[in-house]
């Protein structure tokens, strides 16, 4: 392959942007790719042009603007609005951008593609008006749109509070915050959150303001099902759960609302490393496959790194520091800085990373999907929303002898739709493993291109039949 640059970085969130800038600082020629119109990733997403922000600016907005400014001042070659749709060993990144298909080639690739959101299914989670917590954040942050006048917020993890608070700030009404975790589980995170007093204080502030505003905060509860109610509203049934997440007998309350935002945590977006067939390990707590990495974020494949949420959820602050660490290692491997210099810088970064990671991981633990909750998914609940596959259908495939998520997929179409299992794959795999009495599924679902659905017309372009380059015909 003929390299077009020294390093390709995929994802311009904090992890990817910092990795790219660190490499560039040491004289490497870096191409940074993101499908979004600007750098920032999930937390520091830029507000699209034409949208006016109201009220006081969030700290994230400052950090994001600073990141974008530093990036603009660096020698990193940014390619935004550009999707990585496939990648080949060695490495060739196949892209689709504003000017059509193209590719970049380099011996070193940093994957910093972030996380995807999961929802542990219940009957009704696929109704219009029910959206993910992360989806709600994106709507609120970058499109400045409310999901509905009155919203119920449910699931697990810090996004609950963030979404509820942002909804109210944007003028919406929060009907309740339904948290799978108990108050004690939140308190147990305090030692780790002490490492980020700013965020701890903000979290406490969020909680007390929501409580003061009279928003019902229900701990150790979950949505059991949602039904369509009169006048386009949704009726959510909320009841208590055990620590495992399994429902327990008790009062079931009804909430009639315009919208429901629900999420059960984030998992690494492993589609790129699965496509390249790097080694992965199963995280039994997060119930997700994570690329196998050494301490410098190297995968099992030479020249391939994964950093940020894609390497395991540890939050935006850790992602930024780890991004720099990766950049530093790459520069060192390329002989761009002395061993002493490298070690000194790495030490400083590692200390910061440890602190940041403690916070991020405590939050990740809080939002990990719980076994009892997965086991209790109702038979008629849709697991794969693209293909409308229910839990009962998945169980039937296992009963028919499927022993891997790939076979379950083949026999049910679970994970064959446009999201390619990004939403349902982990849950379906966990269900299959549990049905087979195994702690972990035998292998991840096979990764394939395209990493996102590609407009066929754009990819194929307009052709003149006579100009088509055709291979030789098949034998008679």
């Amino acid at each position, binding site marked *: 392959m003929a390299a077009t640059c020294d390093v390709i970085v995929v994802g311009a969130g904090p992890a990817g942007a910092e990795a790219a800038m660190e490499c560039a600082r040491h004289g490497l020629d870096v191409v940074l790719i993101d499908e979004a119109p600007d750098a920032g990733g999930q937390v520091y997403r830029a507000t699209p042009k034409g949208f006016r922000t109201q009220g006081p600016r969030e700290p994230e907005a400052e950090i994001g603007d600073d990141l974008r400014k530093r990036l603009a001042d660096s020698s990193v070659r940014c390619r935004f609005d550009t999707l990585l749709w496939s990648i080949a060993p060695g490495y060739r990144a196949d892209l689709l951008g504003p000017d059509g298909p193209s590719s970049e080639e380099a011996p070193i690739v940093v994957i910093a593609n972030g996380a995807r959101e999961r929802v542990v299914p219940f009957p009704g989670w696929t109704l219009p008006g029910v959206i993910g917590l992360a989806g709600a954040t994106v709507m609120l942050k970058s499109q400045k749109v409310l999901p509905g006048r009155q919203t119920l917020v449910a699931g697990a993890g810090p996004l609950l509070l963030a979404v509820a608070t942002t909804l109210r700030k944007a003028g919406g009404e929060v009907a309740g915050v339904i948290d799978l975790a108990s108050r004690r589980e939140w308190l147990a995170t305090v030692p780790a959150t002490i490492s980020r007093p700013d965020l701890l204080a903000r979290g406490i502030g969020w909680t007390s303001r929501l409580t003061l505003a009279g928003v019902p905060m229900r701990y150790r509860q979950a949505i059991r099902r949602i039904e369509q109610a009169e006048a386009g509203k949704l009726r959510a049934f909320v009841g208590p759960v055990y620590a495992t997440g399994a429902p327990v007998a008790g009062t079931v309350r009804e909430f009639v609302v315009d919208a429901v935002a629900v999420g059960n945590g984030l998992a690494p977006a492993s589609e790129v490393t699965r496509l390249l067939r790097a080694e992965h390990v199963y995280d039994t707590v997060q119930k997700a496959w994570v690329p196998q990495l050494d301490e410098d974020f190297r995968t099992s494949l030479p020249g391939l790194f994964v950093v940020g949420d894609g390497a395991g959820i540890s939050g935006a602050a850790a992602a930024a520091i780890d991004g720099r660490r990766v950049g530093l290692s790459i520069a060192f491997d390329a002989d761009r800085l002395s061993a002493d210099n490298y070690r000194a810088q790495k030490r400083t970064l590692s200390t910061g990373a440890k602190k940041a990671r403690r916070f991020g991981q405590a939050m990740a633990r809080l939002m990990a999907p719980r076994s009892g909750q997965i086991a209790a998914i109702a038979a008629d609940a849709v697991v794969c929303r693209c293909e409308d596959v229910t839990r009962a259908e998945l169980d039937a495939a296992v009963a028919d002898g*499927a022993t891997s998520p790939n076979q379950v997929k083949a026999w049910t179409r679970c994970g064959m739709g446009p999201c390619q299992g990004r939403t349902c794959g982990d849950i379906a795999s966990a269900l299959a493993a549990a049905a087979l009495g195994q702690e972990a599924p035998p292998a991840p679902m096979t990764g394939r291109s395209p990493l996102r659905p590609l407009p*066929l017309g754009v990819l194929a372009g307009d052709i003149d039949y006579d100009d088509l*380059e*055709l291979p030789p015909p*098949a034998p008679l």
Partner: protein
Amino acid sequence: MSKSLPLDAAIIGAGAMGATVALHLARSGMRVALIDRGEICREASGVNAGTLTLHMTRAALVPYAMKGRELWLNAPNWLGMDVGARSAPGFSLAFTREELEMVEKRAEARAAMGAPIELVTPKRACEIDPGLNPSMIAAAFCELDGHVTAYMTGRAYRRALLATGAMIMENSPVTALDREDGLHVIRIDGGAPVRAKRLVLAGGVWLEPMLAWLGLKVPVKTLINQLVVTERMRPVMRSVVGIANGLLSLKQFENGTVLIGGGWQGNGDRVRGGVETIPKNLIGNIQLARHAIPALGETRVNRVWLGLESETADALPMIGEIPGHEEAYVIGCVHSGYTSAPYMGRLLADRILGREPEMPLFGPARLIQKDKNMELSA
């Protein structure tokens, strides 16, 4: 497996070929084991395009494919499950003079073997399927075409096999074959050896290393076929569509997805499987597809995958006794092999059961190389 109770037959490779042989032997009362290193029908037989076309079948195999097609359409009756087999008309289109010549020659060769293929005008073709690009200059038309959803194959066979009492040994990679006390001994990685009176090798592209276990050198070429599936879309076509040179196979399933194939190649091999899509080949394939069915420009490509197809030196199958080895058989390397598998498997089962097969088999002797150097081909 206890030493005292050998099986009547062990079939290695649980693709459609091996599974069909196992099913017929078990239904005739034999005690059989179907052994695979992975799960049932996860290789070629579970990931293929499922086209039941006669336009593309090697002319010599047309009579077999016609039988196989009928069997797929009747799957609920003999296999016990609907695997999504549907009958549809089929076309092979010509857009240039050169292609017209090709279409005529191919149609003629296949018609001579019994395929009801005729040439039709663009107008007639577009009456049958209004989704076609009217700029063609002619088309070969065949009433007998159709498609199956290949990913259901393993589920159907597994249920049917279990109902017969056959043993299905999945996730059991065979590593070597031995002969002891007049029995075949099948060595399995991580498991006890299996003993059987009869042995059937049904390993698809892996037939070359399998035959090497018996000391036989038979080169088997591995094709890395690329398939592309779109998102669900409105009905845009109702026939199975190919073009003269065979580089396109196109159909829309009931769920609205369109499957695009035609033997465009990706990178990979027998050891690593399908490794990477070649973008040039992906783009070439879908350009051709969009040319044939212009409405495809509206949809999105959802997934591209690679499957491994086998081919012998003369591109004809290996089905029959393995020379020099008692009670050992081979089946595989059949062009359009998914279409004919239910029939080919039955023919070999008949031979094993001592019945005269309805149509001739394809003895592997012609393909065995005398050269003693056992290095495997790529």
